């Protein structure tokens, strides 16, 4: 009884938790909506709930900003959560990007179908799946899943101890594993992506938590502030300084996996390609923001307190990872023939550019943090926008109501050769397609690069905004990406890491090649449907590395169409375009805000 009496309940500053509570609470409500709201209203309720929660969270973050700036951060829940300017800024970025991504997720386009399987439990190609498709079932569980993931992403960069960081890591990862498996079309690829993501993700989080255990062994606490204090006064267990370095490296390995840095990047292309496209946009932008937030916190608060000799080793490791990531992302991106894979390698390269900004962590460079905050926003806007465009460019089957029953084995065979006509055809998704106005059924996204030829002539606005996002990712002046890269490399030069910045510029130049190649393809290459068709198409296919035969090329021709958005995706794309241009032309106020965000409270 005496121990019970000695227990003191912590005082909780609920006000600072409101953004997180709103999002997670809406997630829980969403689960109840699934149970109690009748079928026909469910979708509308879920969309309103999800968007409302994210707008609400964003509003409260804006309202809290001044207060948090003044206090220079506050510890909540006995220090488990630290709402400091940096944490709050990252929460804001995550919520803004999640809001845009949710708009894309909610859009059913003019086909009236969303991007998710009618019943994810049905075996692809089975009669049950066919039935579910015909009945027009929809899985609105995606909205609560997205909200739970966003909740985890908001906690992740604002944690005060490594255990909360681990729990947040899982809270954001587990819904993403499920979301990855839910694609309506190409379900085999989607399940496979989820499988790989899950196994590698669980492996990485096991490494992360073992690292936490070692840090705990050294410091006797998982509280970041206490680990820092133990490092600074050389305390902890005797003769166990090695433990903390090993532990920290394992923690960083777990985080670098999440941001998709080489050599932990191998899941990225597979998962980005296999996941439903709106989900890919969501996780590419938001996971990266959240994970970089956590990475910055660990590096700046624990890494900077290491003894100088250990810190030097850590900096060298960071250099190697940054260089490897930039080179892998840029060089392998050049040979990709699938749009989503290409964007995945682009995302790996961006992780490398972001790491460049962080090498100054030992000197607590505020410019490094400013660069990361700005970069994450700029990259996120361009990425969500780019994947939103990809969701609208679709394939169309040549004949009305194309082949329905596709046996699983046939789907496996055709899925195995991306680039061949069957790769993205009826693989587990042929049944019950929506007829297009001119007869052919609208299929999944046209992700093969050759299918994008001539898009600029048929849909100039869509192709134009896609080109803008690509230019921003390439870092062309007057776009957000240029300012982002400039500040990131500037932060590295400021701490004397100019060779790293130089490699960054070179890698950036290599990546410009594949971005510009797509723009050339969209605007200056004749469309396959515009007549000259077959031959040109075949040669492009060969050039791109895929053995596209004449018949396949003929089948490809006239197979690409652009579906209209229900409105949500259009809004998201317009906001992304505006953001990318505004951040590129008038970056100073956002840069000032980002610099204000470069304050931590241990």
């Amino acid at each position, binding site marked *: 009884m005496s121990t019970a009496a000695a227990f003191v309940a912590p005082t909780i500053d609920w006000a600072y938790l409101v953004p997180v509570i709103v999002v997670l609470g809406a997630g829980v409500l969403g689960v109840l909506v699934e149970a109690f709201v009748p079928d026909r209203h469910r979708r509308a309720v879920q969309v309103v709930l999800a968007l409302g929660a994210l707008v609400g969270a964003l509003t409260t973050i804006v309202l809290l900003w001044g207060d948090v700036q003044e206090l220079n951060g506050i510890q909540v829940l006995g220090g488990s959560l630290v709402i400091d300017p940096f944490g709050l800024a990252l929460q804001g970025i995550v919520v803004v990007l999640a809001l845009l991504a949710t708009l894309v997720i909610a859009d059913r386009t003019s086909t009236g179908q969303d991007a998710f399987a009618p019943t994810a439990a049905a075996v692809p190609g089975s009669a049950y799946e066919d039935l579910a498709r015909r009945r027009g079932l929809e899985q609105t569980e995606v909205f609560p899943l997205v909200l739970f993931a966003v909740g985890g992403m908001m906690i992740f960069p604002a944690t005060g101890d490594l255990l909360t960081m*681990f729990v947040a890591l899982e809270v954001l990862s587990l819904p993403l594993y499920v979301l990855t*498996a839910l694609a309506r079309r190409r379900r085999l690829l989607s399940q*496979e992506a989820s499988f790989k993501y899950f196994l590698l993700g669980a492996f990485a989080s*096991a490494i992360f938590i073992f690292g936490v255990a070692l840090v705990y062994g050294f410091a006797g606490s998982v509280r970041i502030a206490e680990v820092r204090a133990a490092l600074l006064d050389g305390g902890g*267990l005797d003769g166990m300084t090695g433990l903390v370095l090993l532990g920290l490296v394992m923690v960083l390995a777990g985080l670098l996996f999440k941001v998709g840095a080489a050599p932990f990047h191998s899941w990225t292309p597979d998962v980005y390609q296999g996941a439903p496209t709106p989900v890919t946009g969501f996780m590419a932008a938001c996971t990266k923001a959240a994970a970089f937030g956590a990475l910055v916190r660990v590096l700046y608060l624990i890494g900077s307190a290491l003894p100088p000799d250990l810190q030097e080793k850590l900096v060298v490791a960071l250099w190697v990872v940054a260089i490897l990531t930039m080179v892998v992302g840029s060089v392998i991106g050049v040979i990709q023939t699938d749009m989503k894979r290409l964007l995945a390698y682009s995302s790996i390269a961006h992780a490398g550019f972001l790491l460049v900004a962080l090498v100054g962590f030992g000197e607590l460079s505020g410019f490094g943090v400013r660069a990361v905050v700005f970069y994450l926003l700029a990259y996120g806007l361009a990425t969500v926008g780019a994947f939103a465009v990809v969701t609208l460019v679709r394939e169309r089957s040549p004949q009305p109501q194309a082949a329905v029953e596709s046996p699983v084995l046939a789907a496996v065979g055709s899925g195995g050769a991306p680039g061949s006509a069957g790769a993205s055809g009826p693989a587990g998704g042929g049944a019950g397609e929506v007829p297009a106005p001119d007869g052919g059924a609208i299929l999944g996204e046209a992700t093969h690069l050759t299918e994008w030829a001539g898009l600029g002539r048929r849909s100039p606005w869509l192709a134009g905004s896609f080109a803008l996002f690509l230019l921003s990712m390439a870092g062309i002046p007057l776009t957000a990406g240029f300012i982002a890269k400039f500040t990131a490399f500037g932060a590295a030069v400021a701490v004397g890491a100019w060779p790293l910045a130089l490699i960054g510029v070179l890698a950036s130049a290599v990546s410009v090649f594949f971005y510009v190649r797509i723009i050339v393809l969209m605007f200056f290459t004749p469309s396959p449907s515009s007549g000259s068709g077959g031959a040109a198409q075949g040669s492009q296919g060969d050039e791109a590395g895929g053995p596209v035969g004449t018949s396949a090329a003929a089948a490809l021709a006239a197979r690409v169409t652009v579906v209209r958005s229900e409105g949500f995706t259009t809004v998201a794309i317009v906001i992304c375009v505006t953001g990318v241009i505004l951040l590129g032309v008038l970056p100073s106020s956002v840069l000032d805000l980002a610099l204000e965000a470069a304050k931590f409270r241990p």
Partner: protein
Amino acid sequence: MELTNYLILAAILFAIGATTVLLRRNAIIVFMGIELMLNATNLTFVTFSRMHGDLHGQVIAFFVMVVAAAEVVVGLAIIVAIFRTRRSASVDDVNLLKN
């Protein structure tokens, strides 16, 4: 009893788990390797908790167990979905996504 022995045991278990993940081909076995890594972590936490004489490490072990349980739920669902589609749970058969 020397407490360091527990740490060495935990490290060995963790290494076995990691090796299992990297070498075995059956998804369920790979998954068991991950669980073994998490349990090795628990042993480490509890041992350090004893060394430092505070209870945080033991409490953390419970958190890790809960997370491991949640991971099992999601992981088995994904593996079963894959198995029902392909009649195989081998990580080598899952190879549609390649360059």
